[in-house]
């Protein structure tokens, strides 16, 4: 009897595991895996559809879906682009599995993803050795495409890079907000956070400012009171928090509860509706972010995209992740068109030669490190809404 029960528990565990595994493979679009590429061109999407930064992956996918719908109205040389999504669960080992699966089983011509720099870096080896281009819509760390003097020639990105965001933030703090002292609060487990902090620090000190306190946390922490109390003790004019929304939301909330009134600023990692839920509207007043795009921008290209997006997604206003996902699909489609082939090496070459492609997040030109040169915007949170503050050109 006892054994039976234990066996029953094990069996149900196994069953649950089986169902979960089944779930994974069914999301990756079964049927048209094999050979028959005559009809469709397969593009992989290795994205954070669940897990800690799920909102990035989901938003990017919405953007890609909209773009592919538009592109497929005409098609490319009579062929349609078809997306093969893979959920990497916001986890680097899973991202590696995803890249391997998409390349070796699904035989995709290119992969869009991952959303974060860390999960993108995890896939570099696989992309390089299989000669399949990967394109991260939002991986902003500078060493994604170029590391230790060596170019990862099969790795591309649609977004600008961290040093640029850190520089824009430092400029804004020193010139616009006239801050003399600043504190930096980083996620010590994140390359993204460290990269931004380094470039912020460099420019802010060059502008005559002083960094009075540097504190750190680890992703998944929930209690930041101790570090914030230390920051409060130094009374900085400005606090730079280059983290991801999941922790930043709590940091901003706890900071305001401790009575820290100074302006706080972050980068595109803050950009999620969850941030407003976590921090609360009032706590977010007097905070700023740098970002890739704003739906409040009056550029006709942007407004056209906002209209199309709202029509498809129940009047939802597109965020930067939606826009970069959308742009990534166009970026790849443009390269496939110019390559005139589904050969991955030719697509790689075409991607690298991109120059002057008009996208929602700005005019795209790649430098020799595969980094796009394009504009950034600064947004301010007012009563839980992002409002467009200014646009900064490189």
């Amino acid at each position, binding site marked *: 009897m*006892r054994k039976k029960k*234990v066996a029953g*528990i094990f069996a149900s565990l196994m069953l649950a595991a089986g169902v979960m595994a089944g779930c994974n493979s069914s999301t990756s679009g079964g049927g048209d895996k094999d050979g028959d590429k005559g009809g469709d061109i397969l593009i992989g999407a290795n994205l954070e559809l*669940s897990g*800690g930064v799920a909102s990035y992956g989901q938003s990017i996918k919405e953007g890609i879906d909209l773009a592919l719908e538009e592109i497929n109205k005409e098609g490319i040389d009579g062929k349609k682009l078809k997306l093969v999504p893979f959920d990497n669960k916001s986890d680097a080992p899973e991202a590696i599995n995803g890249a391997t699966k998409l390349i070796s089983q699904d035989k995709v011509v290119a992969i869009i993803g991952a959303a974060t720099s860390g999960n993108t870096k995890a896939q570099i080896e696989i992309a390089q050795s299989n000669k399949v281009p990967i394109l991260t819509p939002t991986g902003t760390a500078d060493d994604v495409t170029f590391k230790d003097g060596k170019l990862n020639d099969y790795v591309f990105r649609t977004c600008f890079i961290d040093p640029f965001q850190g520089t824009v933030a430092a400029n804004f703090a020193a010139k616009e907000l006239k801050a003399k002292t600043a504190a930096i609060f980083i996620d010590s487990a994140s390359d993204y956070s460290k990269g931004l902090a380094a470039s912020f620090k460099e420019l802010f000190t060059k502008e005559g400012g002083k960094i009075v306190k540097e504190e*750190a946390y680890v992703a998944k922490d929930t209690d930041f009171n101790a570090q914030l109390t230390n920051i409060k003790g*130094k009374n900085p004019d400005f606090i730079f928090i280059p983290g991801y929304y999941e922790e930043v939301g*709590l940091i901003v909330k706890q900071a305001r*509860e401790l009575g820290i009134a100074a302006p706080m600023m972050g980068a595109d990692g803050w950009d999620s509706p969850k941030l407003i839920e976590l921090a609360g509207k009032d706590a977010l007043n007097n905070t700023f972010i740098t970002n890739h795009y704003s739906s409040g921008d009056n550029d006709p290209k942007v407004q056209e995209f906002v209209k199309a997006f709202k029509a498809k997604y129940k009047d939802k206003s597109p965020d930067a992740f939606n826009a970069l996902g959308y742009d990534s699909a166009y970026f790849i489609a443009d390269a496939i068109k110019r390559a005139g082939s589904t050969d991955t090496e030719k697509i790689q070459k075409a991607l690298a030669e991109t120059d002057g492609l008009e996208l929602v997040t700005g005019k795209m030109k790649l430098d020799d490190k595969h980094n796009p040169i394009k504009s950034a915007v600064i947004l301010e949170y007012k009563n839980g809404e992002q409002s467009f503050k200014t646009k900064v050109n490189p």
Partner: protein
Amino acid sequence: MFPIPIFRDWEFIPISNGGSAFMEQLIQQLVNGISLGSIYALIALGYTMVYGIVKLINFAHGDVFMVGAFIGFYSITVFHLGFFPALLISMAACAIFGVLIERIAYKPLRNATRIAALITAIGVSLFIEYGTIYIRGAQPEAYPNGIVPLKSIEILGVKISGQSLLILAVSIFLMILLQFIVHKTKIGKAMRAVSHDQDAAKLMGINVNNTISATFAIGSALAGAAGVVFGMYYTKIEPLMGIIPGLKAFVAAVLGGIGILPGAMAGGLLLGVIEALVSAAGFSLWRDGVAFVVLILILIFRPAGLFGKNVREKV
């Protein structure tokens, strides 16, 4: 645009002011630590009660805490209940959940080796975590703001948020209630008897199975309460949130002396304060590490815990 601070750096200001600013920060850090510590204490109580009675380290306890946080969250957002009804519902649901875990997973193994029960506990823990992810996904949820409209108060320049006072009040109330149950009620007497000697208790006509279930129910209800309080205070909840607080509470229980109720409370509060002070000293990244160093030190130098007596194990 914003007030220019007069003192940027307390090291550079006159001793008297510097001293008070330092004291202010220290008191603030102590308040931070006690808020965190009282959550650890609530979870640690469940660990300690279960260990005291069946000598099992219930590693699924941290996940009951997570389930409690989610039940509270859904009571508040879906059924639009206030904080206290949500707290009670979560405690009741967790009590039932705890009894179910005990009946399904642990009871069949009661006479098995302790290592078998321990491994089962780890299995149950993983099952609850990933079962939750399977049901609702891994994305985090945010407790709505302002469920309890409490203003923060300021004492001697130290800002104490209403919520941390609430945590403290709820924790202290539940601990007193627990002391009362254990020492003044019949079921409490039965629990003490069973923990002392299971077989003798059975001979005295105590229903051992029901007593053990009651222990799991009470311990799990406390974890559920801790879950709701945690959600209120820290806002973010997610399916794997129970792991670290669960382990820390285990450390707290060992620190105080596992199996001893006041020990778990003191251990929890002490651990919270230690963590806050480590962060205050500028080693915030070492915070988790220090908690486990405390565990190792206590196991080396005082294995019975701060409140424990050295009792030789029966052979």
